[in-house]
């Protein structure tokens, strides 16, 4: 069931109402049953079986690891649990891609053999809860967390419906204890939760899906475009994917908040990052914290005698894994490797960068910060080309045609004040030949940047809004509701991250 569907608009209040009326000791059971029903609504029976298998394997291994004193057996149990989870994820998500590439390789080597292509399977949510399971086993093995003995609470930790499909990827120490707390109705949590859900829906249905019309038209047929349409499509995609994914997370966190459950923040104004490393501390935070703690740091320590080159190897492997996690496709692998290259270069140039800013007397100035944000944003947008393009050939085409026609356009813009007439000729006819639509897109981008700036300066966008005068707040509520009803695309357009 998608968060932007009518079913969810009925599901959530029904579950909340029953939750409120239930005796405290059975509330975890209601949430667990609701979560399983939520997953069952996808009407893919093997997904429910997959979730149950992951829960049982991880629960069992966690307890066995904790009960075992012998270090070698603990390590063995840890790897059995982790590899079982990886095999489940690998089978559902990567088998088809692996067979396709092996067949390509056989063909390249002129080998007269090929493997039967397996069908593409649906794996919504699996990437997220398998990673959560691995983080649980790692924390139990490293003795930074206790194994959860209550099967019901553990199952709920894995399957809690607000975070089941697209995260956040929660640590057991952050989430499980919340299910044990006695529930008391809190008006502020209910109010904030509702606002977060509404805001998330607005970002997804109004901003992301509207921008997606233009982006899909261009990236769906890139060879018909060159220059400005490609540039605009890339910028719009940067905003679309943020609005889409952060919108989902807002709905997830808002829904959880109504049950007095706090889920980890997953975005902190990512497009105000001052470096690529800073971007990864702000974008899909729970995934990158997972990669940092369970992949990068162990690798970096393992390669520590190689000094900077050890860190570079650790970064390349970690970001490659990040690309693979996002999808069984070559463009995602290239995207991950591009970020690995960005971060690896920064290992070597950061000391020179500090000296450069000090020499120019720009250290810790607003100018330095703005420059860093500008450069970082464009490095990220360049990487989004890899992420959005459906094939490597399309990636190459977009990169080599971004500049086409730009000089002529700028020349005629300087010579001729009717620049918008030129803009029209360079734009996709069905959307951007209208000043109103173009203005609409700029407003969408402005709203997203405003949200990020408020988050950066005030710490919490929703608390900032809720502290405003009643008239201002209710104006915003009405605008949100009217926008969603009138401008929101239908729920036929899935969330982008459902593909991961």
């Amino acid at each position, binding site marked *: 069931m998608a968060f932007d569907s009518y079913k969810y608009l009925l599901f959530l209040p029904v579950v909340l109402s029953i939750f409120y009326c239930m005796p405290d000791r059975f509330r975890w059971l209601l949430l667990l049953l609701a979560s399983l029903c939520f997953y069952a609504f996808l009407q893919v029976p093997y997904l429910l079986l997959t979730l149950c298998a992951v829960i049982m394997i991880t629960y069992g291994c966690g307890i066995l690891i904790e009960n075992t004193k012998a270090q070698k057996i603990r390590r063995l149990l840890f790897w059995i649990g982790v590899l079982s989870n990886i095999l489940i994820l690998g089978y559902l998500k990567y088998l088809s891609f692996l067979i396709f590439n092996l067949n390509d390789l056989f063909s390249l080597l002129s080998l007269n053999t090929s493997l039967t292509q397996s069908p593409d399977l649906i794996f919504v949510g699996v990437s997220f809860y398998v990673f959560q399971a691995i983080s649980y086993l790692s924390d139990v093995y*490293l003795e930074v967390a206790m194994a959860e003995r209550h099967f019901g609470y553990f199952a709920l930790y894995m399957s809690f419906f607000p975070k089941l499909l697209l995260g956040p990827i929660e640590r057991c120490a952050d989430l499980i204890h919340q299910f044990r707390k006695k529930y008391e109705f809190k008006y502020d949590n209910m109010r904030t939760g509702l606002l977060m859900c509404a805001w998330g829906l607005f970002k997804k249905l109004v901003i992301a899906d509207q921008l997606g019309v233009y982006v899909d038209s261009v990236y769906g047929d890139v060879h018909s475009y060159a220059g400005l349409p490609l540039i605009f499509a890339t910028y719009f995609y940067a905003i679309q994917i943020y609005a889409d994914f952060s919108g989902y997370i807002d709905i997830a966190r808002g829904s959880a908040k109504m049950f007095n459950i706090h889920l980890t923040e997953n975005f902190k104004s990512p497009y105000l990052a001052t470096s690529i490393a800073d971007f990864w501390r702000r974008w899909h935070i729970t995934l990158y914290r997972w990669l940092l703690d369970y992949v990068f740091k162990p690798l970096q320590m393992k390669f*520590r005698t190689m000094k900077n080159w050890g860190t570079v190897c650790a970064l390349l492997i970690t970001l490659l894994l990040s690309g693979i996690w996002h999808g069984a496709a070559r463009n995602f692998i290239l995207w991950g490797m591009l970020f690995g290259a960005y971060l690896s270069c920064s290992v070597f140039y950061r000391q020179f960068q500090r000296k450069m800013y000090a020499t120019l007397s720009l250290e810790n100035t607003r100018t330095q910060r703005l420059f860093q944000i500008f450069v970082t944003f464009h490095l990220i947008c360049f990487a989004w080309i890899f992420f959005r393009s459906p094939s490597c050939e399309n990636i190459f085409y977009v990169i080599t045609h971004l500049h086409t026609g730009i000089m002529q356009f700028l020349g005629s813009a300087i010579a001729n004040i009717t620049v918008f007439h030129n803009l029209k000729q360079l734009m996709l006819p069905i959307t951007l030949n209208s000043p109103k639509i173009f203005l609409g897109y700029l407003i969408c981008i402005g709203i997203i940047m405003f949200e990020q700036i408020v988050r950066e300066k005030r710490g919490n966008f929703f608390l900032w809004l809720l502290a405003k005068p009643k008239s201002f707040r209710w104006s915003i509520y009405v605008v949100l509701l009217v926008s969603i009803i009138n401008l929101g695309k239908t729920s036929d357009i899935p969330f982008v991250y459902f593909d991961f």
Partner: protein
Amino acid sequence: MDIRDRLNNVFQEVFKDDNIQINPETTADDVDGWDSFSHVILIVAVETRFNIKFTQKELLTLKNVGDLIKRIEQKSPNV
């Protein structure tokens, strides 16, 4: 010189700051420049200076300087 003083010297050399004074509660948030890159340099310097080798598990479960001092004491009891 005890372990804490010797460790303090290592911190001062790695972070190029003679004013650093560590205590058992010190974490990365308390030392300017202590990030994941400099953390590796610090660990290598500690292993070299104390002639010890940490296991992966020990390195991944260090929470603060106090934990680091305890591990050094366990691994080099004659210091």
